[in-house]
């Protein structure tokens, strides 16, 4: 059985290294500051005992006032998982750092989020639309898209 | 293509294909040879029981495609709904069966027909009269096991022996 690590415990570990990077932590997940996402992600991937080497999925949810991007991380070695989230409050030009450098599996999924939510992932090798054509207006999965 | 195995694998494969030359073919010739379809077959048409229907409209609300249109009026004397219009657009229907499962009064069934091709899109819309049960329009046993028992047993490919000739 994959153990879902408590967000609170992991948050305390992160706080030791990067203080002030965790916005919120619950037993299910933890929310990190978007500008420190990349550092936290690298910490999660490379710290012994955590070793989150497998990115299950990346997705975004539109909560009207902010976008929440969720990363489900797993460790195949220790068989545990953790949901990490980051929030974007800018609706016009939302941006987050890309994690493709750490987990290549995020490549198409970040493009998909860019396509359907309009969140720009900085540092992604080819940030362009994936499903819809280039001239498409709007981002369909936003709640205000009709 | 290393021939370190000297073509044994190729020879094995050739025996399998040549064996099939002397076996019965699996296929059947459709318009002449007809197989019995599943008793629970979700046919292309809906069948509606006018007596049982109360006009509650649950089916129309459940339909994920919005293919069912129902208009009712209130009959004050009898104190019930009268179904004035009941239409199912089989062109939009995806045969998911959720309307049949949701019907609280067991008034909606699938038909057991599958040859329902039409020449015009408009002909695909089933009106009230075209939804009634007739001898040609048999009721499928989907979600109603008691109806299924009356239907012929499904032909299965596992019953057909393709090994021997």
């Amino acid at each position: 059985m994959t153990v879902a690590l408590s967000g609170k415990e992991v948050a305390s570990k992160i706080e030791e290294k990067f203080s002030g990077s965790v916005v919120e932590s619950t037993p299910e997940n933890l929310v990190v500051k978007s500008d420190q996402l990349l550092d936290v992600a690298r910490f999660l991937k490379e710290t012994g005992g955590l070793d989150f080497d497998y990115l299950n999925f990346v997705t975004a949810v539109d909560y009207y006032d902010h976008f929440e991007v969720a990363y489900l991380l797993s460790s195949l070695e220790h068989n545990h998982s953790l949901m990490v989230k980051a929030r974007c409050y800018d609706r016009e030009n939302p941006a987050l750092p890309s994690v493709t450098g750490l987990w290549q599996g995020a490549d198409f999924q970040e493009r998909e989020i860019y396509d359907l939510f309009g969140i720009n992932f900085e540092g992604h090798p080819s940030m362009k639309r994936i499903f819809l054509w280039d001239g498409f207006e709007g981002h369909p999965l936003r709640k205000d898209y009709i | 293509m290393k021939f370190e195995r000297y073509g044994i694998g190729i020879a094995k494969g050739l025996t399998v294909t040549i064996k099939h030359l002397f076996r019965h073919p699996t296929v059947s010739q459709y318009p002449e040879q007809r197989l019995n379809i599943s008793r629970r077959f979700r046919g292309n048409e809906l069948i509606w029981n006018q007596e049982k229907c109360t006009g509650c409209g649950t089916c129309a609300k459940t339909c994920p495609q919005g293919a069912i249109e129902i208009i009712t009026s209130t009959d004050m004397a009898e104190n019930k709904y009268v179904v004035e219009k009941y239409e199912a657009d089989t062109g939009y229907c995806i045969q998911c069966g959720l309307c049949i499962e949701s019907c609280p009064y067991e008034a909606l069934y699938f038909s057991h027909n599958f040859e329902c091709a039409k020449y015009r899109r408009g002909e695909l819309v089933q009106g009230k009269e075209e939804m009634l049960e007739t001898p040609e329009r048999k009721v499928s046993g989907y979600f109603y096991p008691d109806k299924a028992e009356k239907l012929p047993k499904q032909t299965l490919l596992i019953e057909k022996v393709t090994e021997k000739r």
Partner: protein
Amino acid sequence: MAVRTEPFVLNMGPVHPSTHGVFRMRVTLDGEVVVDIEPVFGYLHRGIEKLAEQRTYTGVIPLTDRLDYISSMSNNLAYCLAAEKLAGIKVPERAEYIRVIMSELQRVAALLIAVGAFLNDCGAYFTPFLYMFRERERIVDLFEMASGQRLTYNYMRVGGVSQDLPEEFMPALRKFMDMMPRFMDEYDQLLMQNEILLARAKGVGILSKEQAINCSISGPVLRASGVKWDIRQADPYSIYDRFDFDIPTQTTGDCYDRYRQRVEETRQSLRIIRQAMEQLPSGPVRAEVPHLVRPPVGEAYAHIEAPKGELGFYLVSDNSIAPYRCHIRPPSLINLTALRDMVRGWKIADLIIIFGSIDITVGEIDR
């Protein structure tokens, strides 16, 4: 020794015999050698995630059929697990067993297609493909018997399955289980040791263990690279912890290994079905679930080991009758991440078989 020529761009797809649907690749070729490829998606994009936000929890199930349309049962199961997790519904025992039988039969059917299509891509002119389809036909017959449909089954419901198995199902399944190993042996004989296939597929398109993990590859492709990771054992969903089965793995991670991996997984699936058949209890098949499920506010992620890999549904609820957000983790899309690194430097014929060995369904990629 390679002679360099002027590279040119070849547009492969969206209509091409071996792109398995409407998938398109822009391939840069140097003679016959693939220099670079860029996959282009979206030709089958139907916006299923957006559509799901406007449908009831039950109404999403027919949509999931149309994701990976050759393994609909698995999609149904993944979605139902997620919805049940969200709403906290307990599924009756018999329904769990039926779900396991169905999803394992579906795995056999889908893997047969995967293997057949792969061999067809290698150039075996439709023979393995048609043989595999014949076996799949026997399974589809069983599905038709239970659900009434042959492709989009829409059989599972939140809280169980739509209806109980008909009484003629178990004898037919038993007969199928007796016949299947014999057919599997015959297919192994057909091409498994064929010298030409070995020359074509062995050592071609190697995906290393590290890269497979880094690219979030899942399913048979991951295990063919030597990672022993199967969600059925790593994170047992439904009742998979009650069955005794092995997780076969391969070592190199080339096309031939992926082919072997699929064949061996089929055998393990048959093993699970046999155990589930023996243990199948009687009882209700559907929990008492209101027609319009209204889960509490929250989110849930449920993932299953679908034939293609880890298929997950991430549902967010706002206590209404429709999901607030329904994200699908598509194994086919994510498995394609490593395609570019796998095919670079191989010939155009190898591109086809490497692509075929990943085994994608475009319905799931584009959603």
